[in-house]
């Protein structure tokens, strides 16, 4: 297991290096930065949904909270690095409190989905009315519909005059994406990860074996919230403004679409989905013939109807079938008519 873990780290780093050098040749780094940020956000939902079995319809809430936490604390502290960590910790704590409330109340499925959606809506509505003078946190005015502009962005810790922007922001975000990806992979291999997957597979069984399902789910939800907060703070650095639209229903829907399209149940799928859909959105934004939202909606409907497992697992299967991973062909399950006949016999 240690060997395969090392192999995975090496593979990820090599693929990451190739992408980090290759992608900027074709796409400008400004777009690539936001794609990496989206990928990180997609990864956070992919983690809690695909491995924790928690379908959160309001992942945008933690994304927005991260962005706002960064902006507000950056204005108050005047330095970027304390806010950078606060933007991870605060959403994680809020996710732990909110998630704890839900999971200790044994809410599931639809109720969970609806309540997380409502949570996002409350934040959205609240942030939209905070335009007045009285809504101030420290030195930062919340600004209502207009959002908060003009906060300190990330700079080198040893040289505050060197800002991290443009190309370097891309490399920074991309590196963080790789680090978080590997971190979550490691987490899934750890005993906690095993328990987490056990809970996803069968809550009752996990509980009868003595694990506290509510606690595990709350922890998973908090980790997802922290990762979403991280991507939110990077987004604040990229956009250099935070607005209530970060909490909008559309934003929440997009995250779900990335995970569905890429493939829930894998960690790489949501990253792929976020990159593909984010780039598609970028391309669609350059034309005015077809509405952007229409295409996103159509993709979601078609993905649910035709590709419920997502793109990535289908690609992996296709490669496996071609014998790309060399396995003894005799053991391969028969396909086509024979397979169907066997399946019928089994029943």
């Amino acid at each position, binding site marked *: 297991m240690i060997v395969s873990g090392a192999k995975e780290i090496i593979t990820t780093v090599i693929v990451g290096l190739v992408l980090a050098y290759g992608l900027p040749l074709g796409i400008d780094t400004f777009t690539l930065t936001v794609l990496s940020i989206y990928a990180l956000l997609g990864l956070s939902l992919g983690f809690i949904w695909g491995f924790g079995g928690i379908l959160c319809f309001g992942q945008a809430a933690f994304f927005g909270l991260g962005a706002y936490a960064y902006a507000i604390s950056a204005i108050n502290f005047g330095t970027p690095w304390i806010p950078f960590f606060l933007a991870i910790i605060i959403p994680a704590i809020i996710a732990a409190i909110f998630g704890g409330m*839900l999971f200790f109340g044994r809410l599931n499925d639809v109720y969970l989905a*609806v309540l997380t959606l*409502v949570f996002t809506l409350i934040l959205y*509505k609240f942030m939209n009315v905070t335009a007045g003078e009285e809504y101030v946190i420290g030195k930062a005015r919340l600004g209502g519909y207009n959002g908060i502009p003009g906060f300190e962005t990330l700079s080198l810790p040893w040289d505050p005059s060197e800002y991290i922007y443009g190309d370097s922001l891309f490399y920074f975000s991309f590196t963080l994406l790789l680090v978080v990806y590997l971190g979550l992979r490691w987490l899934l291999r750890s005993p906690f990860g095993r328990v987490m997957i056990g809970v996803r597979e069968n809550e009752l069984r996990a509980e009868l074996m003595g694990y506290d399902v509510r606690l595990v789910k709350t922890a998973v939800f908090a980790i997802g919230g922290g990762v979403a907060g991280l991507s939110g703070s990077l987004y604040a650095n990229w956009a250099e403004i935070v607005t209530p639209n970060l909490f909008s229903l559309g934003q929440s829907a997009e995250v779900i679409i990335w995970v569905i399209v890429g493939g829930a149940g894998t960690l790489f799928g949501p990253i792929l989905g976020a990159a593909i859909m984010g780039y598609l959105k970028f391309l669609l934004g350059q034309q005015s013939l077809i509405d952007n*939202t229409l295409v*996103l*909606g159509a993709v979601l409907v078609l993905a649910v109807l035709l590709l*419920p497992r997502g793109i990535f697992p289908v690609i992996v299967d296709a490669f496996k079938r071609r014998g790309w991973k060399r396995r003894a062909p005799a053991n391969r399950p028969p396909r086509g008519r024979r397979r169907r006949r066997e399946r019928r016999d089994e029943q």
Partner: protein
Amino acid sequence: MDYAAVVIVEILYGISVLVIISAGLAVVFGMMRVINLAHGEFITLGGYAAITAHSLGLPIFISILIVAPVVVAVFGLIVERLIVRFLYGRLINTMLATWGLSLLMIGAMTMIFGNTTTGIPTPISGFTLGRYQMSGYNIFVIIMAIVTVLIVYGVLKTTRAGLIARGAMQNPEMANAFGYNTSRIYMMTFTAGAALSGLAGGVMAPLVGLNPASGANYIAKAFITVISGGTSVVSGMLSSATLFGSVSQIVTFLSTSVIGEIALLVAAVVLLRLLPTGITGRFLKDRV
């Protein structure tokens, strides 16, 4: 005295709006356990249908009460055949697919009607109650809510179609064995729910400025009303609409309307935390 009357009418109005915008969803969710996240866009479509019909010269009440429900019912029928019927029993997938549908409809309505806010004038003039000016249309909304509840209750409880529909939802195999086509019953129920959403859109059209994204204003409220109500279609919807309508209107009186809406949402979160299966999951069981 007059002020008390005004407050009571306003609270009744708040409850009525919740009843009207959640009736369609309540029928579809309560009967079929299908969550239609495109419900808000169904309502918006009803509004656009009413406005378009009115601008083409039809009398306003025909546009609101007939054109809007019929247009949305036809649309709902198409959606059921093309998308929803493949997903029965897969709750999460239905939610996701209808969320996609909702985005698709927002996009399509933006392309057709443009990203602008439109509306129609209120057809009923106001009147004075003592020292206060009242909106006549608000009274109409209250009456429409009562009519909607009576129709849904009447159809489900007293007609043969309602009996068959309820039976098919409770035990599809048994209904099939009796010779009823459950697929058709599901189709008709979904269409009826869509018609109610269309009616909501028509009735709400003179009250709100309509734009392609305004479905988002309804969806959250409709949802929490239905989910908090639980599985009983009429009694669940009525009880939670009464609770949330009163909460939001009272808070609105004390502060602003946005804070009132936030209070409604917070009340829903607290209620679902306390009663995870909704109001009728605990009380008023076995009612329609």
